[in-house]
């Protein structure tokens, strides 16, 4: 059974600080996605990583896919209150498998 674990589960930081969120599995994934969900909204895609070792940057967010395609990280530089939300990693073993979601990391950035 595929499982995705995320850490930390909760994170509360001051504006301007840096943080890293981790997503791990014992399974190999064909791709991993990171979503952000704000209260009252559905998850919104931030990025997809498909190649082992891949690094993608989205403004202050840096995403990395592990070489073995079993893990991923999300690093936020100089966090802002607008970054507050639930960060979910998701993935599937192949493009024909259902997408599974990690338990999420709830981030709160305090002004």
């Amino acid at each position, binding site marked *: 059974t595929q499982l995705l674990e995320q850490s930390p589960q909760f994170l509360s930081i001051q504006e301007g600080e840096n943080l890293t969120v981790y997503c791990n599995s014992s399974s190999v994934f064909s*791709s991993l*996605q990171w979503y952000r969900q704000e209260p009252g909204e559905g998850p919104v895609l931030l990025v997809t990583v*498909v190649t082992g070792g891949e690094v993608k940057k989205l403004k202050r967010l840096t995403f990395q896919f592990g070489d073995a395609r079993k893990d991923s990280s999300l690093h936020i530089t100089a966090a802002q209150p607008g970054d507050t939300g639930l960060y979910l990693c*998701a993935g599937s073993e192949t493009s024909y498998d259902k997408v599974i979601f990690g338990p999420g990391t709830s981030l709160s950035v305090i002004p």
Partner: protein
Amino acid sequence: SAVISQKPSRDICQRGTSLTIQCQVDSQVTMMFWYRQQPGQSLTLIATANQGSEATYESGFVIDKFPISRPNLTFSTLTVSNMSPEDSSIYLCSVEEGGPTGQASGANVLTFGAGSRLTVL
């Protein structure tokens, strides 16, 4: 990317009643997915709805409790039947489409509606 409209956005229901959630997509899609997000938790897939065939349910979810309709390529409904307080959740509709890297990558990218927040008293 697709735009998904869900309604109701929220509702408060009595135990034992049923509620139907509607999901409308602005483009034709093959598969639509229904997820449940219990308070403070992540997303769990309930079922996959294909037009013209019965929905495929995940382990722990049954058609009698969560009947799904998919009358055409842009619309689906999920009914939560004989509700109990344990059914209080956010129910999300989603579709799969190419993301930033495109469908050629094989990435299973999902677009979601805003969700329907259900509270059962």
